[in-house]
């Protein structure tokens, strides 16, 4: 009953609908951005405005702030659809649901990840990030925030209807490899070293993570239906 055209249609349907909804509600894409900027601002406030200090810490600060913002932003990804019956329709559609879940995550990443990455460019100025690391920052964050959105979706599904902090604790330890990779890319870039190896590792994590985490997320959502 399922043919490939149909699945693509469904994928685009979910993507388009979620994108439309996200843009109707400006809070969806503005709040993660502002949260990110506020967190980044707190570091100079707490640590002092010394250029050398902030410059040495910039990569880590930006990465951690991006991690947290991504994670918190994705928390509500399923709650509305679960409550109003849209999620039911995914399961009844006889399409592989994990692909539709990925459509939702992709939409979320486009809507929340992109502003965060733009904000991180701004933060690189606030925090005196060494020049030459900017490109590495953007690339590593692009991959990293996508992974965080995937992980965050799993956390949101497991803790569906519970607090955001809970879904954050569940998922943060699993984001450690991404964090380590991302910051390694940054320090390699600052030292003018080649970081393509790290990028391929992150790419591999995504390649495994996209199907794997989406499948687990489907399992987690199904738990709520018993």
């Amino acid at each position, binding site marked *: 009953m399922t043919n490939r055209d149909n699945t693509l249609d469904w994928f685009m349907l979910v993507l388009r609908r979620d994108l439309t909804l996200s843009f109707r509600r400006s809070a969806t894409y503005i709040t993660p951005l502002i949260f990110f900027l506020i967190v980044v601002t707190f570091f100079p406030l707490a640590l002092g405005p010394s250029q050398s200090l902030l410059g040495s810490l910039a990569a880590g600060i930006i990465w951690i702030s991006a991690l947290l913002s991504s994670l918190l932003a994705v928390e509500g990804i399923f709650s509305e659809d679960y409550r109003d019956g849209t999620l039911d329709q995914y399961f009844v559609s006889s399409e592989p649901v994990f692909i539709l879940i990925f459509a939702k995550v992709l939409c979320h990443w486009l809507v929340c990840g992109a502003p965060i990455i733009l904000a991180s460019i701004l933060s690189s100025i606030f925090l005196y990030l060494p020049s030459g690391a900017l490109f590495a920052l953007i690339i590593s964050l692009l991959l990293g925030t996508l992974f965080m959105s995937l992980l965050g979706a*799993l956390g949101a599904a*497991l*803790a569906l209807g*519970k*607090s955001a902090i*809970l879904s954050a*604790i*569940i998922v*943060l*330890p*699993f984001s*450690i*490899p991404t964090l*380590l*990779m991302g910051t*390694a890319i940054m*320090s390699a870039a600052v030292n003018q070293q080649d970081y393509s190896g790290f990028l391929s590792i992150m790419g591999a994590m995504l390649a495994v993570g996209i199907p794997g985490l989406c499948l*687990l997320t489907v*399992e*987690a959502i199904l*738990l*709520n239906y*018993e």
Partner: protein
Amino acid sequence: MSRIKNWLIAMGSPPHFYKWATSSLPWLAGLAVIVFCVGLTWGIGFSPTDYKQGDVYRIIYIHVPSAILAESIYIFMAISGFISMVWRAKIAGMLINSAAPIGAGFTLVALLTGSIWGKPTWGTWWVWDARLTSTLILFFLYAAIIGLHSSIENKTKGDRAVAILAVLGVVIVPIIKKSVDWWQTLHQPSTFTLTSSPSMSPEMYLPLLVCVLGFYCLFIFMLTNSLRGEIISRERDKSWVKKQFFKY
């Protein structure tokens, strides 16, 4: 082989497990106390003094078994999670919930004893070496499981949720450990690990083994005890429980 299989399948049913648990608990307790005490006294009291670290190293007899248990319990939880997902055995699901606090406790003990060991040997209460960091992260993983389960009202659904988390964790934990190891070498070329008594004579080694065994016995006792209580509390509306306690 099939006898073991039948025993395992029978164990999967709560009333059967409860009966077995009630009858074996005193024995398990006795075994745990004996092996645990023997191991500890032997190690702390009778093993030779290390020429490098003096008597401080004796804390290894608590630290290493705790650390080993902390990791094994997580793997154990992941296996029962997998079993509960594939075979839908109720006991396997409950096991995760009962084992998690015990595992978290051992992780804490490992961290604390590691810290206590560190102070006289390196001068600080904490150091970000690969093993300690990984153990800390393991503690967070336990906390996540405990937190998630406690926040879900329907216990069976909670079991399934933490099963997913445990299975995912066991896949990710080696990756995390590898990356923390590598992070360590990246930032600190001279690594030193906690078990810095690399060559242990048999007089030191044997009591350690006994301690590890003792800790395992302790774990099995605590797990059985906790599971037994959990079964009763969950199945309290079922007839077999009522028959047990209210002999009308």
